[in-house]
């Protein structure tokens, strides 16, 4: 039988794209081993976006016209995705996208694109979900007190978007509305230059944070910022009650560093979710067996989810007919290795948004433990952040 072709565009040079492509391949192999879909095997065609917009757009064109794929999947950076959206709109193939957080992408896609399914939470959704998380944590643990929020954001697109959504959330909170109403009494945002972009000196920013003395110190940057920032925080003696990082991935062996203990993080997934989710555990083991390396970023389970979500839809629809498949995908409930059940719902603009929030995790004993959502909790939070003495 002719295979069902799925075209993926990811940045292969980056660990996120690399691992998400591998996880997709894993899912495809599993499904094929189980007999494929509709009696047809699945075929995955991966094209590197090189993190360049025009390359990412050309990749979509290639998948559409040369490989004649049935579906588009993949994704990571918003800038690349923005260039792909007009192309995707031309082909209007069913697209399950697991990257890009910027709300601009959502605006560019527009409300009419019923073929567009987006898995990664939008930047504003992430912001809102954290508010919910902290509120629940503050309720669950009476000694946790959250009032002053300090956001350190990298000055590029990724970090600045966070800052902007925090500003919106703050103005809502001031009026007693929104997810942060209970936990954001005051807010301050300061930018820094990420080490990934040639920066790496955070001390000016940390000095301001120290002077501000926040309850919640959050930094939105890249994995390369994680350890140097902790070192410099230690150097200036800055230990906020919560030290939270929100990079898309973490450095290798981060947990081994003595500075990592009790660092909180936002993330969609952590290896410890294996303890509470069988899919996660299965994914983890299968991935390691196949590739002889551990999934290191949530883009791995997200890529895996991407394929399975589509497969579930096809299975339910029993056809590749676009309209029926869209309907089926709207109904799919997939218990993903991310730890929660994936189900589409509308977001601000688009009809089909998948995940809406991230989790709050904490590095404890070298592992990421889930501390929120409370129902997925794998450990109790360490609070407050211990002092730097003796690390």
């Amino acid at each position, binding site marked *: 039988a002719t295979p069902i072709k799925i075209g993926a565009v990811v940045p292969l040079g980056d660990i996120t794209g690399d691992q998400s492509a591998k996880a997709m391949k894993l899912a495809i192999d599993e499904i094929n081993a189980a007999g494929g879909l509709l009696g047809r095997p699945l075929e995955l065609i991966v094209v590197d976006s090189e993190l360049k917009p*025009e390359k990412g757009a050309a990749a979509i064109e290639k998948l559409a016209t040369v490989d004649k794929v049935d579906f588009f999947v993949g994704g990571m950076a918003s800038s690349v995705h923005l260039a792909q959206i*007009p192309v995707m709109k031309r082909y209007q193939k069913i697209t399950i996208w697991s990257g890009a957080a910027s709300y601009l992408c959502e605006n560019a896609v527009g409300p009419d694109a019923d073929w567009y399914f987006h898995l990664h939470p939008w930047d504003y959704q992430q912001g809102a979900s954290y508010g919910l998380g902290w509120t629940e944590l503050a309720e669950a643990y009476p000694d946790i007190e959250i009032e002053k929020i300090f956001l350190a954001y990298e000055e590029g697109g990724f970090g600045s978007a966070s800052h902007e959504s925090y500003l919106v959330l703050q103005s809502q909170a001031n009026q007693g509305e929104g997810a942060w109403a209970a936990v954001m009494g005051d807010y301050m945002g300061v930018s820094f230059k990420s080490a990934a972009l040639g920066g790496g000196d955070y001390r000016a920013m940390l000095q301001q944070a120290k002077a501000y003395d926040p309850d919640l110190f959050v930094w939105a940057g890249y994995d390369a910022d994680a350890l140097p920032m902790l070192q410099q925080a230690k150097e200036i003696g800055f230990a906020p009650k919560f030290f939270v990082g929100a990079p898309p991935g973490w450095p290798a062996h981060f947990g081994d560093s003595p500075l990592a203990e009790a660092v909180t993080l936002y993330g969609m997934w952590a290896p410890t979710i294996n303890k509470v989710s069988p899919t996660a555990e299965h994914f983890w083991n299968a991935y390691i067996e196949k590739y002889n390396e551990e999934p290191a970023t949530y883009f791995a389970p997200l890529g895996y989810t991407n394929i399975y979500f589509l497969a579930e839809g096809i299975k339910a629809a029993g056809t590749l007919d676009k309209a029926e498949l869209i309907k089926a995908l709207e109904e799919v409930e997939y218990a993903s290795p991310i730890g929660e059940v994936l189900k589409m719902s509308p977001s601000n603009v688009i009809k089909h948004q998948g995940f809406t929030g991230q989790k709050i995790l904490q590095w404890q004993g070298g592992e990421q433990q889930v501390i929120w959502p409370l129902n997925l909790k794998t450990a109790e939070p360490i609070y407050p952040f211990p002092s730097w003495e003796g690390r």
Partner: protein
Amino acid sequence: MKITKSLVIIILLIAAALLPVVTEAYFISVAITILTFMTLSISWDMMLRTGQLSFGTAGFFGLGGYTGIIAVADFGVDPLVGIILGGLLAGGVSLLLGMAILRLRGLYFAITTMALASVFMVVIRNLNKLTGGPSGKIVYTTLFNYDSVKVYWLMLGITVGTIVVSEVFQRTRVHFAIDSIRADETVAKSHGVNIYKYLIFVFVVTSIIQGVIGSTYALQYGFVYPESSFSAHYLLLPIAMALVGGIYSTIGPVLGAIILGLSSEYLKLIMPYGHLIFYGVIIVVVVLFLPNGVYGAIKDVTGFRKRRLEER
């Protein structure tokens, strides 16, 4: 000789214009990208012919892109008008800046142009209201509504225009002015060449080209984003293309853009991982074995053959 030459050119032009009829959208989008870099590469080379190494290509490219997007998004102009505005703004800015920095030479000029490009980016990133700041800006009316065939024809037109300008520069007094400036400014000015005027002229013309290309690129996809609109690869790749093809000529950058543009795309398809290594290897090999670039090598060989024939 002349007739065959113009015939070849006409055939090539027709073939280029008909490309969309015979190929897939994918090749068209690859072709658009190649043309984009080709124009950047030619424009960089045009400046180089004056002896000035410009590192500002990406800066004017990005500036043009932002102008185009802002014109369309905030002032509601047609994208085609946006493209023209992108060129004009880049030209205007380059005129003002050129008056100051074209007194610099060599590395100092190169680094200053690069610094200016970075300044453009930082300023744009911090003017949130107008430019969307760090998270970029999108428009909903893209160029020809993302009809890539039309975009291709437009790009082809711009490229042909650039080639014509470049060739005009090579065949008129401009050629003698800038080549003498490159060789020896003291001699040039002692023989009546108004160095400053010509430097500014070429700088502005090439910046306009870069601005036009930048806004075409941005309006084609309908967005600008500081990190990608000013990305160094709009500087480094055009330079590499011109050098690989052969500098101080129009055909060199053209060849270079085609060679590097196609090989990067092809390499990527045959080897998903590590294709950039081989891309680097190609570049290294070309420099080592064809120090005058591909066109230079062709010229050497045919020139050699011609001479041999004459000797017989």
